[in-house]
């Protein structure tokens, strides 16, 4: 076995530990720099992964195939690292509201480690452990503002429901293993087809899906999302919205397309995916319509986006899987842009109501532009990332509809369209609140640190780049999903 395969994970965990230790020697007022240090370190790792030196770019399996490094994992690892970097930026901006900020940083890094493992998980044990690593760190991250009741409440809700879902998942794993005797995805794939009609096996599969569905907040397991998003500290929400969702998706794809492909393409499961994705889209968008609380609004919108992403899963074809990857990449920048603005704007005023954005275009044109672009991209309007992502997803579903001729896909398509139209409203409400609301109370300009400006520009650049020059990323994504069936 080639241990250097996991050097990336090892170094990330190392980074987390170092951060915790450094906290001891760092005077309180300078702890901000720990954040920048972490960012820098992660940046180096990211560059390394691109430069191809070290483990990150070489492919292979470790721990008897429990841990796999391939295109897919590489794509997601880069995604996670970028997400973590941007989240850390937000966290640094947010630091004055948090005690013990450096633990916060290190927890983010540990969560990142969990995600990296998730990206490579090719075995139920690895799947379970990585998910738990993510979830448990998030329990803490969510409830990090111990002085704030909302934060604690969110933490507890996340804790209970998260534990519940992992209980279901572990039981499912038990059943799968019990029936097939396989924990490793690759080996399972070989035998899965024999158990296609074993009820117990199917039960296991479904329970595992429950666990993953909880992570990506798909209907009917979306119920936790709004409260947790609202209560958690903004950087955590951001990381929850992109990081843990993406982790859920990579595991879902591994599970469905490399562990049990034969089952996945069975009629029952594919129909279920179609229905779940459709309902998720509608639920998220409909509930967001009357929503005024900004973070809660984004929570609902993230539910609907989980639905859009599920389109790609339901399509059951390579283009669909590639579309998921592409969409997540765009979603990363969009969501982080939105939460950056929220973190900066709603920092001083207690309300998180949309009306808090009034007059933002006078207070800080850059922030206003950033949030607007984020919203427009979420709404899926050219020339931004969201449009091209949605385009790819719809295209994959149309292909599925055409190849299988399953009428369900047409219904799914129209549901998605309806969802998009509904979503236009609440997104444009936000934009309207920024530019054209009644004259706000305070028009005091918002001061932004250079780091914050940088983050904003990074997000904007990312959104536009993915909208205007999709070629490179798309090819990478197509390459990445080559291993899936």
């Amino acid at each position: 076995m080639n241990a250097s395969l996991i050097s990336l994970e090892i170094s990330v965990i190392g980074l987390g530990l170092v951060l915790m230790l450094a906290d001891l020697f760092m005077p309180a007022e300078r702890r901000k720099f720990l954040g920048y240090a972490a960012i820098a370190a992660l940046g180096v790792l990211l560059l390394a992964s691109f430069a191809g030196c070290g483990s990150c770019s070489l492919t292979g399996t470790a721990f008897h195939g429990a841990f796999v490094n391939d295109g897919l994992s590489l794509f997601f690892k880069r995604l996670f690292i970028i997400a973590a970097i941007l989240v850390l930026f937000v966290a640094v901006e947010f630091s004055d509201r948090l005690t013990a900020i450096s633990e916060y940083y290190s927890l983010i890094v540990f969560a990142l480690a969990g995600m990296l493992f998730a990206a490579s998980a090719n075995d139920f044990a690895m799947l379970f452990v990585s998910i738990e690593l993510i979830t448990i760190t998030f329990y803490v991250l969510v409830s990090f503002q111990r002085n704030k009741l909302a934060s604690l409440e969110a933490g507890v809700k996340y804790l209970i429901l998260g534990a519940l879902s992992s209980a279901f998942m572990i039981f499912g794993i038990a059943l799968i293993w019990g029936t097939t005797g396989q924990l490793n995805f690759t080996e399972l794939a070989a035998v899965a087809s024999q158990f296609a009609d074993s009820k117990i096996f199917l039960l296991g599969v479904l329970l595992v899906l429950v666990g993953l569905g909880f992570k990506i907040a798909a209907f009917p397991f979306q119920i936790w999302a709004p409260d947790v998003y609202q209560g958690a500290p903004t950087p955590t929400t951001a990381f929850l919205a992109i990081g843990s969702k993406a982790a859920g998706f990579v595991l879902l794809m591994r599970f469905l397309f490399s562990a049990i492909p034969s089952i996945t393409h069975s009629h029952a499961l594919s129909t279920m995916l179609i229905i779940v994705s459709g309902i998720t889209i509608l639920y998220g968008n409909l509930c967001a319509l009357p929503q005024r609380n900004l973070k809660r609004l984004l929570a609902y919108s993230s539910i609907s986006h989980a639905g859009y992403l599920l389109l790609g899963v339901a399509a059951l074809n390579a283009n669909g899987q590639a579309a998921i990857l592409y969409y997540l990449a765009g979603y990363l920048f969009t969501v982080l842009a939105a939460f950056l603005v929220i973190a900066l704007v709603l920092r001083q005023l207690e309300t998180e109501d949309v009306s808090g954005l009034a007059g933002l275009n006078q207070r800080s044109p850059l922030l206003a532009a950033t949030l607007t672009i984020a919203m427009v991209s979420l709404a899926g309007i050219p020339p931004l990332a969201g449009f091209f992502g949605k385009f790819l997803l719809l295209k994959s579903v149309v292909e599925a509809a055409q190849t299988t001729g399953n009428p369900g896909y047409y219904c799914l398509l129209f549901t998605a369209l309806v969802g998009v139209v509904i979503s236009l409203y609440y997104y444009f409400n936000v934009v309207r609140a920024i530019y054209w609301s009644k004259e706000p109370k305070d028009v005091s300009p918002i001061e932004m640190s250079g780091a914050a400006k940088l983050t904003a520009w990074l997000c904007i650049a990312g959104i536009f780049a993915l909208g205007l020059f999709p070629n490179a990323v798309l090819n990478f994504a197509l390459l990445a999903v080559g291993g899936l069936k």
Partner: protein
Amino acid sequence: MSILTQIAGWPLLAALALVVVPRNYRVVIRAIAVLATFISTVLAVKMFVGYGCAVPDAEGFRFVQQIPWVESLGISYHVGVDGLNVGLVLMGAIVAFAAALCSWEIKTREKEFYILLLVMSGGILGAFASLDLFFFYFLHELALVPTFIMIGVWGRGERKNYATFQITLYLSIGALIALLGLIALYVQSGANTFDIPKLVEHLKSNPLETNAQNFIFPLLLFGFGILVSLWPFHSWAPLGYGVAPSPTAMLHAGVLKKFGLYGLIRVALPLLPEAAQTWANVIAWLCVGNILYVGWVAMRQKDLNLLIGNSSVAHMGFIFLGIASLNLIGITGAVLIMVAHGFLAALTFALNGYIYQQTGTLKMSELGGLCRKLPFIGTALLMAAMAGCGLPGFANFVGEATVFFGAWTVFPTVTVIALWGALVIGGVYMTRAIRNALHGPLPEKWSALVDASSAWRKLPYALLLLCLLVFGFVPKLLTEKINPDAGKIVTVVAAAAPAEHALVQVDVPTARAQSSEIEQ
């Protein structure tokens, strides 16, 4: 770089430039907008004049430029004009210029307004020029969204929000359905390219199977139809134009709306010829709804803008009729009306905007006798109204007459109904409008109105009128360009006559095979 890229590019560039201009430099902002649109107008005229001399490429397109964009999907930035869209690009550029000139009526948040206006102009010009389905849609969407925002923010009247809601709802749904149709077309064709000429070539040799065509065509028909306010999906149009600021109304009613019709002619007919023949009847009878029903509704209107809005919906009916006739005369006529109505709609909404800006109302019961105080505007409006009810000498008449001649051989009944709508109903509501708004005694309160005095103010109206007259007197300028390319489409459609079902059936498996190949 193709001249078309420049035509569409200048406004977008100017929009970017405006972002950095401080908002209190009103004059500069305005100047930049006007200048950019003016440049693209000049270029468009140059392009139109030089059309004859330019050498067409293999597929018969001129001023072509192609840049690969996403190879894996076969998307490329591909612009070019043939007879079908050369007139539209010219019209679009001129209307954009006129709209920019008319925007002096906007007093609040000028910077944002001009940015949106320029994005809209650039987007729609690009959409008309592009020969790649993806960019075709992409640029249209780019132009569509500013419309919503402009109506929502700068709109007039108390029904503003409702109108914004409705127009957004309708147009987004329409656009998305059309997108669905386009994607389905792309997937079905199995050519793995969004390039329209390539698709046409590919589908000529192996057309889609019948039921696939009959599934995709309605998507395109109704998707595009909603964008063009095809009856019964029209109710957004009068309302939206009623509240929209006049530059927006000019650009949307004049130019953006033609996108759907152009899409039908450019994409739906040649790529889905068989379905086109099946659905022609439906189109023909739906357009009766536009012409008669909406015409009658227009007769009821009390508000000048609503009346004009309804009449412009009614005019769409003639274009649909021309398309439905599926013969050379009809389609040529349809394209003629598209161009003519572009100028006309822009003109009428611009004039309404002037009157509204002067009087603060467009209720015809409150207006009257304006010809006395506003000789120039009044005369222009009168001429516009006359062009609107198909008076010879204006471009609309040529188009409508051509459409009638084309449709007569196919749908005599519908043609007669359309005649009634054009000559009688159109005449009735237009003359009523003139009688109520321009003729009759002038109410006391309007004694202070001022006419468009400076040549600068008169320019947009004069320009649009001039275009209407030029193409009305010398329709050959357009028909000679349209004819050959409309002919190609007609032949493609005729070739797929139901008689040749057998041939189609043979080709189905191969098409299937290719489409399944790209799945892997």
